[in-house]
Structure formats: C-alpha cells, structure tokens
C-alpha cells in the first residue's frame, strides 16, 4: 500500500493541485513562494494530533470572493443548502493504492467502500467545512448592503473571527468512482492509516543565540522516549530498561548517604519550638529519571584528539545538519516500529536537506537515503517493511538533478487572473509530463542537468546560448537592455538561468522547457553551409544550415539562411520558447553567421569593418572575427571595453524575454493583512 496521490483545494497558493507520489522518494522543486511548504503544512494540519484549525488567511485568495458570494446569497434569502454550496472549504483528498487481489490492507480496510476489482485506490477526504447548522451564525449581524472595498474589510474582519469557530473538519471515505458513496470517518482513523513526520528547514542548528544548541541531544531524548514505550521493539526496550535500572541504582545510593548528609542541613522542626509542629519531621527524597538526565545533563560529544571531547556545536554545520536528518529518520523508523498498530503509510517530509552541505554531499543525499532505509529494514527482516514515503523539498539544483525526472514535482506559481494580482500553484509532474520524451533524450537531459549543475527548476526564465563568448558577454547585454528601458520590466531583477547548450542540442530541451512553462530564449547561430552536409560559408552563399536546432525548429527540410532571416517573429516563437539567430542590423545590410560576426557587424565603426556591398562587409567581418581568440575577445568586451552595441538579434530576444510576467516574491495581498486577527497565532510564512 502507498499514498499514490494527494489533491489539495483552497489552501493558500494551492488552490487546486494534484500531486502524485513516488514509491519511495518524491522531490519537490520550485522557486521561493511556490507553495512547497504549504503542501507539507496542509498535511500536517489535517493529520496532527491536536485539533487542527485553519484561519481565514489559510484560504486561497480566490476564496475571498466566494465568501462574498455566499454572503450575497444569504442576503438574497437563498436556501442554506445553496449557500453552503457557495462557501469555500479547504480540502485534502488522499488516494491510497493497494492490490485488490491481495489486499494487505491494515488500517486502510476502514476506507475501502467499493467492490470494483478494477479500482485499486481508496480515497480519504478531509475537509475544513462549515459545521452543520453554522450558516446562520456565520453571517449573523453583518451589516447588510453591497460589499464594497470599505465594507469588505469589515466583512473579512468578522469572517476571520467566525471561520475558526464555525468551521470544522469532516472526514470520510469516498468511493473513487462514485462521489455519492461515502462512509463517515474520523481524524483518529486517518491517523491510524497515515503517520506523518516532519524535518523542517528551521532546524535550529545555526542558531547560536539560544544557549547551547544541542539539537542532536534532543533527538537522543526522542529515541529514548520511543524505546521506553510498552510496544517498542524488544531489543530497544531492554536498553531503555537498563538505562532506567542504572539510574535507579544511583538514586538508591543517593537516598542512602547523600540523604543522611542532606538531612543535617535541614533544621529539625522541634528546634523551631512552634507548638504542634514537632509531630512529623521533614526528610528528603532525591529522584532522578532518565528523561531529565538526558534533557539537562547529557550532551552529544565528538571524540577529538588526545581524548578531548568536543561539544556538538564544534562540528561543522553541514555535518551536524546531515547527522541530524539521519538521526531523525532513524527515530521516525523506531517510532513506526514501536506502534502497536503500525500505520499503513509513513510520510516523512524533509525540507531543504541541502542546508550547509557542500555540493557533493548534496548529490549523494537522495541516493543515500534509499540505502539507509534498506539497512534499517534489515534490523527487522521478519516484519513487513517500513512503508515510508519521503517528500523532499529542495532549492538545491544538485539534489534536484540527482533525482530522476520521474521523481520530480515542479511547483509553478501562475497567475490566476488576467491582471496577475492573484497567483496559485500548478504542480508539474515530470513523470507524466516527460512521458512522451524518448528515453535516450531523457537520459541526455538528465546527464546534462547533472553535469552542468543547472538550476532550471528554480529560475523564472532561461536563456540557452551557443558558447563562451555569449556566456561572458550576456550579462553586459542584459544590463544594456535594462538601461535602455528603465521604466519597463528589468531583466536583472528576474531570476534567470543561462545554459550553454549549443545548436546541436538545444532542441532536445524544448519539451522540458515548454512543460515547465519556462519562458526561454534560445540564442543560436545561423551556421550557413553551401549545401546540407557541406562546408561553411557566408549567409548569402548558403543553401542550408548545419544548425540542428534550427533545422528541427522549422521542420525537416533544408533551411536556406537567406529565407530564415526573413521569417516573421511569430514563426520563431513556439509556446514559451523563442528562437534567436543572426539577422540584418539594417535593412538590406549584411548578416553575420556567428555571434562574433554579428557582433562586429553591429559595431562596424568600432572594428573598422569595411566593404562596398553588404556581402563584402559580411566577408570582412568573417575574416576579422577569425583572427580573434574567442575567449580573449569575449573577456575584453565583457570587462574592459563595454562601449558597444548589442547585435539586434540578441537585443530583440532580450526585449521579448523581459516582457513575460514573473511570479512575485511576496504574495501577501493587502486584503490578507486587513483581516489579520490581532493576537492570532503566527503561522509559518508561505515558503
């Protein structure tokens, strides 16, 4: 059995998302503020032991209009039934997969209510919904009249107070093929089925302001508590018992000599001479228990040189971080083994495991975690395997690239309305999205991303370029573009990833880029040749291009460069990807064949390019360009001498790239602030 997918509705940025989980490890990637933390948060809230409540701020922004619509329906005297249908709710749907032929159901049995052999999923719905009969009270006493920007604030201040009181959590099992077929259940029943553990990004490891940060010692305490449970694994229980035995022995001896001495410190009550006080004398009893010994008097130490023990915080942050995560995983494992009725699925969320780790260690993390599970399982070979499913959210391209595409879920914030004032998250599933991509190409992409440490998954936009010259000079070109249009969107304030791919491979990225909905500029070269497979030549002499990317883009047949440069812009845009190759700087002027040619032709005076005809100019540029050493050329004009004009094909491309909208880094809308309840519990930031 495993948790196959989860659907979330109306929780913060997660207006309506579905996420498929991998058998063992699912990697969640995405830039900041894309709802990654919200995903673990909503599961934490619904499955926590404490009665979970949601605040009005937890509703997706679009729900606010739904509250207003429900209020309007109430004013219009609609039936409660209709009003309820309008009111927004926060919902978590979990689909568990099992084998109907050999059901190893465990606690899932409670949730299977269909008898269709073809249906291998059981659906558990948890919904934060208005409690029965609450609709009147929800809107009671709210001033009548239209909701405008003024009354809206008052309305939501009221809603903020009432929603936590008048909403509650309902839980039921639902037939995945028949929404009418339901069976009521409870949060407690779900907790038997699904256990969730969290290793948060804030682990307090680097917090040196609080006393000594003995985070690892805390984990040790946790391990002891688990081991002393009635239901714990026998071996561990024995250790816990022996610990307690040892402490009891100390306590006994303390209560011997120690007490006699201590006793002498206490004045006898009789000496105080107060009538009636002398009857019973005071005595002392010292109690010790393992838990408190661990909490207050036990520290984790590292063995240093010459027998000197080093405190926990003397080890590097990275090592401590790694040890901390691994110990936590072990403690989750022990916790699972000590359950009298083991849960069917154990979800473990690990946020940003990369913290403080150097890149090589980040890369091994994903691989390592699988091996650790195997080792742990070996301790209990006779028992069923630990049904753990990891959800790792990361900002590390090293971790993301190391995971296979199939395991990656890409959280993409996209505008929910035309004006892009409201954003919500779309989850892109690379297992499904890349399904049609040939395995060979997938392997190429995977290798490429790993080798180049590419941060494609965290960027707002991408630029694919040919080589070193562009890479070195592009930053200056971007700066020049931004300065030429100060009032427009600035490219430098957007997070861009630049990939040196080259015309031979760029097209292999198109599937992935379009799937990620990443606005991308592909800067390539015309690469004119006399004939297909022939030698290179000037643009006007060419009958074909040797550039695979261009040939693929325009579909098969040989592309005559002279025709290519006449292509209208819309033919060079496909989805979110735009192709850029050399063009004429002036009408009827010459056209370069490579970046260097085009650069010289864009700055003819600076480089003294001369010729009577456009073709002669092109020829001169080619000759001059070939005398330059590429990297020296690029470095010179990237650093020492930046007084030049960007070739038109690149500046046009950059203008196009700058125009696309980008998810804001802060999404707190004024409305949310306006309804913030004073003194309400501070919730963790969105991401």
């Amino acid at each position, binding site marked *: 059995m495993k948790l196959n997918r989860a659907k979330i509705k109306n929780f913060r940025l997660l207006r309506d998302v579905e996420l498929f989980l991998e058998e063992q490890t699912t990697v969640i990637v995405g830039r900041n503020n894309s709802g990654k933390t919200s995903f673990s948060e909503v599961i934490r809230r619904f499955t926590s032991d404490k009665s979970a409540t949601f605040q009005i701020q937890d509703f997706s922004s679009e729900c606010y209009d739904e509250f207003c619509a429900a209020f309007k329906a109430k004013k219009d005297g609609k039936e409660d039934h209709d009003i309820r249908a309008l009111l927004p709710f926060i919902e978590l749907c979990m689909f568990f997969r099992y084998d109907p032929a050999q*059901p190893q159901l465990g606690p899932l*049995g409670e949730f299977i*209510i*269909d*008898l*269709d052999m073809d249906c291998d999923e059981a659906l558990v719905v948890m919904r934060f919904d208005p409690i029965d009969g609450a609709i009147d009270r929800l809107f009671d006493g709210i001033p009548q009249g239209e909701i405008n920007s003024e009354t809206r604030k008052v309305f939501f201040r009221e809603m903020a107070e009432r929603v936590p009181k008048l909403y509650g959590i309902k839980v039921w099992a639902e037939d995945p093929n028949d929404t009418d077929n339901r069976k009521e259940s409870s949060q407690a029943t779900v907790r038997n089925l699904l256990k969730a553990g969290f290793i948060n990004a804030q682990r307090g490891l680097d917090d040196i302001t609080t006393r000594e940060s003995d985070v690892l010692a805390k984990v040790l305490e946790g391990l002891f508590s688990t081991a002393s449970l009635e239901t714990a694994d026998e071996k561990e229980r024995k250790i816990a018992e022996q610990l307690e035995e040892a402490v009891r022995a100390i306590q006994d001896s303390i209560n011997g000599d120690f007490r006699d001495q201590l006793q002498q410190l206490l004045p006898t009550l009789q000496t105080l001479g107060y009538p009636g006080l002398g009857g019973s004398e005071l005595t002392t009893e010292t109690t010790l228990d393992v838990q408190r010994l661990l909490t207050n008097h036990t520290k984790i130490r590292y063995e240093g040189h010459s027998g000197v023990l080093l405190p926990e915080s003397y080890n590097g942050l990275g090592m401590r971080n790694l040890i901390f995560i691994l110990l936590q995983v072990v403690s989750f494992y022990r916790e699972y083994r000590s359950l009298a*009725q*083991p849960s069917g699925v154990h979800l473990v969320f690990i946020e940003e495991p990369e913290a403080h780790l150097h890149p090589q260690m980040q890369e091994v993390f994903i691989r390592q975690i699988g091996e650790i599970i195997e080792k742990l399982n070996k301790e209990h070979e006779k028992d*069923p395997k630990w049904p753990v499913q990891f959800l790792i959210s990361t900002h590390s391209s090293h971790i993301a690239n190391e995971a296979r595409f199939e395991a990656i879920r890409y959280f993409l914030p996209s505008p929910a309305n035309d004006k892009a004032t409201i954003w919500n998250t779309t989850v892109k599933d690379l297992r499904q999205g890349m399904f049609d991509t040939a395995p060979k190409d997938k392997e190429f992409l995977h290798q490429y991303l790993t080798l180049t440490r590419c941060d494609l998954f965290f960027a707002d936009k991408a630029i694919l370029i040919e080589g070193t010259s562009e890479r070195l000079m592009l930053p200056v070109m971007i700066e020049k573009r931004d300065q030429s249009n100060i009032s427009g969107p600035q490219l430098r304030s957007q997070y861009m990833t630049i990939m040196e791919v080259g015309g031979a491979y760029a097209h292999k990225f198109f599937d992935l880029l379009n799937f990620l909905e990443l606005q991308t500029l592909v800067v390539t070269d015309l690469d004119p040749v006399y004939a297909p497979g022939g030698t290179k030549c000037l643009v006007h002499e060419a009958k074909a291009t040797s550039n695979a990317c261009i040939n693929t883009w325009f579909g098969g047949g040989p592309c005559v460069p002279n025709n290519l440069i006449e292509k209208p812009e819309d033919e060079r845009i496909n989805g979110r990807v735009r192709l850029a190759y050399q063009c004429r700087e002036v009408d009827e002027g010459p056209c370069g064949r490579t970046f260097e040619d085009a650069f010289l032709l864009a700055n003819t005076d600076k480089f003294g390019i001369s010729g009577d005809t456009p073709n002669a100019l092109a020829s001169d540029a080619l000759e001059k360009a070939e005398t330059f050493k590429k990297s020296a050329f690029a470095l010179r004009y990237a650093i020492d001498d930046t007084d030049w004009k960007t070739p038109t094909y690149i500046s046009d491309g950059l203008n196009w790239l700058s125009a696309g909208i980008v998810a804001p880094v802060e999404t707190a809308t004024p409305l949310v602030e306006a309804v913030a309840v004073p003194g309400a519990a501070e919730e963790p930031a969105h991401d």
Partner: protein
Amino acid sequence: MTEPVKLSPAEEASERALAAVFQAIEEAKSFKLEAGAGAGKTYSLVKALQFLIEKEGKHLSRLNQRIACITFTNAAKDVIEDRTDRSSVIHCDTIHAFSWSVISGFQSQLRAHLPELDGWTGDPWAERLKEVGGTGTRTIEYTLGYRGITDGTISIHHNDVLPLTIRLLGYEKFRNIFCYQYPIILIDEYQDTDANWIATIREHYFGKDGPPLFGFFGDHWQKIYGNGCGELVDPAITEIGKEANFRSVSAIVDCLNRMRPELKQFVVDPEAPGEVRVYHTNGW
C-alpha cells in the same frame, strides 16, 4: 512434589480433542469439532481462542486483523468475551451482528441488492422501494431490527442481513477484503448456522489455499432450527471428535454410544452410579 493428577477418561478425551484442534490451527487447516451434549464444547472454543491470542494475537493486531468468533446467541457471546478477557483481537458476535459489521461499509452494493430481497411477506423490497422512487442515496441501517424507509435511511430486518451478506460474498474484492480482515473464523453451534450462508462460504473459501481458517464447533445431532446447515462434511475440513462427556454417568453415556457409535464418548467417573429410563409414547 505434587502427585501427577490422574486424568479421568473424559478429561483425557478432552485433551486429545484440544490437541487435535491446536494441531489443525498450527497447520492452518480448517477443522470441525463435533462434540455431543455435555462434551464441554464452549470450553474447547475458549481454549482455542486463548491459544490463538497467545500465538497470533500480537501479530494479527499489528496487521489490523482480527479473529472472528461467531456465536448463536448474545448470551454465548458474553460468556466467550468474558473468558477471553475481551481481547481486542477477537471479534465475537452473533452471525447477524458480525455479518452486518463487515457489509455495512459497502452501502452502494447494499443499495443495489436490497431490491432483490423478499422483504415483507408478499410485499418485496422492490415494490416498497419503487413507491419511494428507488433506494436513491438513502443510508441502509440495521439498528431497529424492523423494516422501514424514511427520507434519508432504509432500515432492514434481521432476515435481510444474511441474504445481503451472501450477495456481497459474490464480489471477489469483498471476499479478498473479508479474508484479510478475518484470517481466522470460529463458528459456535455451526449446525444451526444459516444453511445458505454456510453454502456460500463453502463455495468461495473451502478447499482454496490460504485464509480464512475456519473452525466449526457444534453437533449436528443437536440441530434445532430448520434453516440451519446441519451436518457439515467437506474434504477441506478436518474432523475432530470430542469424545468426552462431562455431564452424564456411564450408564447414560454407554447408551448414547450405542445410539451414536461414530462419536464414542468417555465419562468423568466410570464408577458413578446411574440408570437410563426410556419413556415412550405413541401418537405424540
């Protein structure tokens, strides 16, 4: 040192039967314990349950599985629960209550099959349901014990529970779920258990590999009710005779043994006096 207690013939027979029951459980073979009146059948059932709790209890409860113990009366259920310390791994109930607990979650199939049932005398469910526009999304309940239809619920009768259970057992997925949840099913007074129910169980589970393991306790000579299954003979079921009689003296048991030679019984005290008197009446 205590003297080894000398067992009476009845006790010896009882131990033999119990050992055979334990062996069947160990070998995961379904069995039938045939025990005449006064043989201490309930004692054997409780012993079997205790043996199972000891051997499988922890394991089963970790897998969220339980042992079903189906009794004929609520009184018997109380006795057995008392003697097994109300262990959470045992689900002891009458056949109706037990069956309802396993089928009640599958409302959509219950709704689909209810119209096939006879219902009121001469007034089948189908007719009644037609009057209210079909089952719709009404919840089917078995709390009142008499039939009724309201806006939101349909209440079924005692006599509807087993026919519905039998229909659900026709679904492969239901059978899979059922035998996962109850890998061991012990049935007290099997001879009076609904014949159709037994026939369905027999059709789907007997002679197939794997769970559930059935243990039938009873005596087909003591069948009281007309719709009970009576004698149960199947190659998949290991027959165990409980050749003890703790209730009667030799004179009576000897007489019984002559009447029913296939289930020879042993008494507690062969020396105890007693006599058999036969009263005979014509035209009764």
